[in-house]
């Protein structure tokens, strides 16, 4: 039972991990993107739509389904990143408002697309479930949730961490987020970095939406929860102190908290405790924990835990 709980937590956590890794890249470039929930939704819709057409078109090759599905999700979400970059970088729009508008748009778009993805009563894209849950798709335990995308999430997080903190590109990107004027004066193409970082970040976040539907939930209604999960991914960035490798651990903790409501009661020894804990009050646990983390990090107030100094500010070179 406990083993099941942990596996569930890991599988669900990867949805957060994609979202937070993507948001970390975006924030390191100085963009506070509140559109991440919408981006994840669009990623899911893009991936599912691609799977739908492939399966309806008769593609059965598992590898092809997974690769194209992931690519489609990435591209769809990256397009959202392009919209955000265009508004925030080129048109200097307010990032908070742009982000919220992206969430409205993204959630609407996903619901509209997913609503149309059915053949009579069956949902074609769910037929790719086995391919996505490779290598444990035949397992009867929660192990089956730990498919390809779970491993991919961890690999991406580690790679992003390495790139951010150990390479020249990472140094430049962090400089853009900390102090764009300095980066600009040093000859770094600030606009290009912001665009690429935001699009790649959004692309990675978009995979989170697909991961949730095709790995964890595997149901036709799964897409309805992605928005709420997206907001937690944004919160996870703060929890992880802008470091994707910490985010791996954080995402599993968040995953565990999110499903605590359905697991904790059954793990408790006495009937009476089980009934008490079964109430939906447990559902608020991840949010309450996020709040506590927010408060604790703000009270501790350490310089290395600060967000990038240029976060949320638009850069205009000729500002006087």
């Amino acid at each position: 039972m406990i083993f099941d709980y942990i596996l569930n937590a890991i599988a669900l956590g990867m949805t957060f991990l994609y979202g937070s890794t993507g948001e970390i890249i975006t924030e390191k470039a100085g963009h506070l993107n509140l559109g991440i929930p919408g981006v994840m939704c669009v990623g899911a819709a893009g991936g599912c739509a691609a799977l739908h057409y492939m399966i309806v078109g008769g593609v059965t090759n598992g590898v092809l389904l997974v690769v194209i599905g992931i690519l489609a999700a990435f591209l769809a979400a990256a397009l959202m990143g392009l919209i955000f970059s265009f508004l925030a970088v080129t048109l200097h729009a307010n990032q908070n408002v742009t982000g919220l508008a992206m969430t409205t748009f993204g959630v609407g778009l996903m619901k509209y697309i997913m609503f149309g993805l059915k053949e009579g009563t069956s949902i074609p894209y769910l037929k790719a479930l086995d391919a996505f849950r490779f290598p444990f798709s035949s397992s009867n335990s929660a192990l089956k949730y730990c498919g390809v995308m779970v491993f991919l999430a961890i690999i991406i997080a580690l790679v992003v961490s390495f790139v951010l903190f150990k390479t020249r590109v990472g140094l430049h990107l962090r400089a853009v987020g900390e102090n764009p004027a300095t980066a600009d004066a040093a000859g770094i193409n600030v606009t290009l970095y912001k665009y690429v970082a935001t699009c790649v970040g959004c692309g990675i976040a978009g995979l989170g939406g697909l991961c949730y539907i095709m790995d964890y939930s595997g149901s036709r209604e799964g897409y309805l929860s992605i928005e709420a999960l997206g907001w937690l991914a944004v919160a996870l960035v703060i929890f992880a102190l802008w470091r994707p490798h910490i985010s791996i651990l954080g995402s599993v903790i968040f995953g565990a908290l999110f499903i605590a409501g359905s697991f904790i009661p059954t793990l408790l020894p006495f009937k009476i405790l089980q009934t008490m804990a079964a109430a939906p009050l447990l559902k608020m646990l991840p949010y309450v924990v996020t709040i506590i983390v927010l408060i604790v990090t703000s009270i501790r107030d350490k310089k290395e835990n600060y967000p990038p100094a240029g976060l949320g500010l638009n850069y205009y070179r000729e500002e006087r």
Partner: protein
Amino acid sequence: MERSVALELRGVTKTFGKVIANNNVDLTVYAGEILSILGENGCGKTTLMNMISGIYFPDRGHMFVKGEEVVIRSPKDAFDHKIGMIHQHFKLVDVFSASENIVLGIDDGNKYSLKDVNNRVLEISERYGFNIDPKKKIYEMSVSEKQTVEIIKVLYRGADILILDEPTAVLTPQETERLFNVLRRMRDDGKAIIIITHKLHEVLSVSDRVAVLRRGEHIATVETAGTNESELTEMMVGKKISLNIERPEPKEPKDRLIVKNVNCTNSDGIKILDNISFTARSGEILGIAGIAGSGQRELLESIAGLQHLDSGEIMYHNPKNDEEVNLRDRTPLQIRDLGVRLSFVPEDRLGMGLVGNMDIIDNMMLRSYKKGHSMFLNRKAPKNLAKEIIESLEIATPNATTPVRRLSGGNVQKVLVGREIASAPSVLMAAYPVRGLDIGSSYTIYKLLNEQKARGVAVIFVGEDLDVLVELCDKIIVLASGKVTGIVDARTTTKEEIGLLMTKSTSVSEDALKTENSAKEDGCNG
């Protein structure tokens, strides 16, 4: 020897909105020379240099590097033409180390290795005589260390044309001399060096030629050897002016503000004010000198009730009833309620003293809006005050409802000083009140301070230009890393003496303190 042209500008023009920052500027710089760009604040020196280094793009005009026409669209283009600029406001990432900042933006195709960078940084330091720890984080550095990082950054890229924007503004006289030696060494190395400044004596001591700008236009370029201070000033300002600041004798000075053994620690746990004691007297201008960040801001803010103190007292002697009150740890409102008329012109004008997006009337209201018990605002009195100040201080503004951020630096400062003086203060504190102002506006501010002095106000003046401090003030206290290292009579002291005190190690300073404050020492309660 035929001198080779390193850089040439022809007909360069740049406008911001309706403001013409540079109009049709021609300029030539040769390799192996130091060229000074001289001009008042706001004459377009920095804008011009920013165009050479790719920060701004000119509206019109041509640029040539070594005889070839070039278009510089971004700082990267500038580097490619071996042009490097050291900005007045350092362009460094605080949380990065020196090496990380130096290597930033360079992609030479080599493997990214901080170790190699560290070694090369040390190599360059040795060659030109710098002293720097490549692994130190910028936020742990002093101003002059940061400047060193900026210079190495440019040298690391192999720049042949170096532009330094007001490099001496934040340095002591001694540090300035050291910098000039480095610059001379680089010149002898064959580099072309452009140094922007508005300090005449520096121009004369370091440069080979001087280019003078006035209101965005290039007036003339002359050989330094064949010119003098008054000729340069005339070119800079456009008319003959006397550069003397008045200093009337104080009338019946009395102790007004007595600061005793004040200690203060900042949020990082660093002692920012260390046992500071001094007395400000009515009818006198008390100068405060020191390297930027030596505790000047915290000292003024603790008097104004904005800074929590660890210990010490700030006694205010009320001239009306001869009573003394302690201002320590009181809020600005409580201080006002005590009947203490304290005015404060902070260093950060648009960030602290005024609200940039509000108009002049609403900014006048900042000090007075709380008056009365009504929950509604009274805009009538501030409106009249705004009109009065615009007229009496000749503030150039379309009307009183223009947001102050749209005014020029000098006019912004007049609005601020005007408001602070309007409340008829008995203590007036001004932090760097002439920073960034042109000569005319600066003299208006000096005149206003002298008027307040004549009214019997105790004026505290924090300045960076030692020439001005020595000419304007009656007494000068020198701060070095949060300590008072000396209190000198401005009439008899010299710049060099103050410069030494600014960097003086702290152990020696105890004596100076004791002699000055021995009489008041016993009032301390910690």
